[in-house]
């Protein structure tokens, strides 16, 4: 059944348990990388070919001088205007009947242009399969009318799943509730970027603090086509005129 689905990740409810990461790896049979132990709780590191959910941990100083711990379960945004899909030369990246962005493993040839394009550091190259890989929005589960594994596992309902319109309503209501309680720093991310994301986030800091480009920087790769081709055409024209001028001159004088 065709429908437009979405995630709403409410970071104020995230407790950093990583159940989403584990459920994702279990369902999608992702072996994962060896964990890296540093000076924090984040031993996942980043979204990539093995990590389709990544719980970020950020410490920040609050306006009152205290320390706040911001956690966010990051995921592919399933952009309406997707940078990865825009550049993909093989048409391996498609929009599904759920309006999600899906890399078809049978079509991808591992050129990695999508990795250079994705502004959210979502896609990774899997050496074992030779493919670009990312969150599928649990495409197989959606087809079977099941919740995505991460949303199913999340114990605090920080990750919500449903119709995109419903998610927007819930997100808007939650934002109003938090602002009403005096949390002025609460904000929504994803209602405008890239034509509207299919993964909305309620944040308590500016987007760039979570590794999300702000609205001004959420731009598509194709913005650079015309100006770069134009630079090439002008260069080619000057180069050809130079060569014609040099080659027409008779004799061997330097």
């Amino acid at each position: 059944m065709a429908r437009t689905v979405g995630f709403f990740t409410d970071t104020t409810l995230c407790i950093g348990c990583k159940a989403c990461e584990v459920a994702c790896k279990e369902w999608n049979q992702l072996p994962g990388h060896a964990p890296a132990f540093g000076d924090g709780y984040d031993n996942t590191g980043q979204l990539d070919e093995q990590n389709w959910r990544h719980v970020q941990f950020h410490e920040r100083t609050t306006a009152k001088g205290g320390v706040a711990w911001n956690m966010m379960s990051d995921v592919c945004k399933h952009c309406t205007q997707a940078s990865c899909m825009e550049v993909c030369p093989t048409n391996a990246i498609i929009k599904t009947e759920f309006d999600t962005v899906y890399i078809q493993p049978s079509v991808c040839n591992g050129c990695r242009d999508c990795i250079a394009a994705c502004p959210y550091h979502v896609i990774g190259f899997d050496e074992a399969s030779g493919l670009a890989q990312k969150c599928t929005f649990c495409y197989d589960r959606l087809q079977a009318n099941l919740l995505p594994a991460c949303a199913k596992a999340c114990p605090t309902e920080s990750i919500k799943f449903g119709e995109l319109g419903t998610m927007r309503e819930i997100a808007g209501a939650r934002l109003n509730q938090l602002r009403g309680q005096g949390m002025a720093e609460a904000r929504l991310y994803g209602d405008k970027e890239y034509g509207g994301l299919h993964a909305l986030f309620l944040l308590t800091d500016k987007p760039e603090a979570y590794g999300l480009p702000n609205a001004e920087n959420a731009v598509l790769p194709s913005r650079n086509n015309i100006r770069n081709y134009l630079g090439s055409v002008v260069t080619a024209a000057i180069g050809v005129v130079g060569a014609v001028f040099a080659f027409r001159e008779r004799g061997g004088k330097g």
Partner: protein
Amino acid sequence: MPQHFVAPPQWEWYIVWYFFLGGLAGGAYALGAILRLMGDQRDAPVSRIAFLLTFPLLAICPILLTLDLGRPLRFWHMMIDSRTFTLNFKYWSPMSVGVWVLLVFSLFALISFLEAFGTWRSGKAPFLTGGLGRLFMIVGAFFGLFLAGYTGVLLSVSNQPVWSDTWALGGLFLASGLSVAAAALTLMTRLGRHEASAEAKLTRADRYFTILELVLLAAFFLSLGAVASQFLQPRWMALWAVVVIGIVVPFVLQFSSARAPAMLAAVLTLVGGLALRIVVVFGAQM
């Protein structure tokens, strides 16, 4: 300063060498064609060298690109949709455009190679003559120049730091392609002890290319603004020095007519052109 949170695509040596050989081959064909169309009889051997050089260099390119793929046997997915078996072409994706340009240009390069080979080894008369022959070479030169320049556009049409923050990469790679092609032809002309007049013409043309490349290099850094600091880290300085030496020193050496400096100038230009692609490709992915 633009925000970037993108992951590097791990485009490494195969891609660097493709960019270099593609620029060299595309530039060589364009120079060969212009020399043939605009030059005189004495330039014919150098024009022939250009066409003899272009196709073998170009033939390496698809091999490099295929080896770089995660699934090399699916290289044809670039051209044909593997589900519908219709042609794949996305004018807004430079990688898609580039695949077709590489294929079409290879046909032009092959035909010009066969003609040059025939006149060289068997003394046959050239067949790319008359209006059609001229048109053929002009169209071939267009695709050659496109190949030399689009590689920069390919990098820019992304969200990578540096690559996507400039408008000058396509032009810079194209100017560099013309310059390394002139250097390669000069080198081969010297080694083959051909007519000096064509070599003097190549030297004159390369002066224009060098100035063009310097202007575009400055434009590249200026367009990057604060992002340029990524390249000003110590680890990239040695490579940038090779790039600048490869542009400036040959320019000075060209005013000497002695044999050794001209050869040295050509080698420095070629090394500088390779260094430019190394530093741009690797430097933005760190």
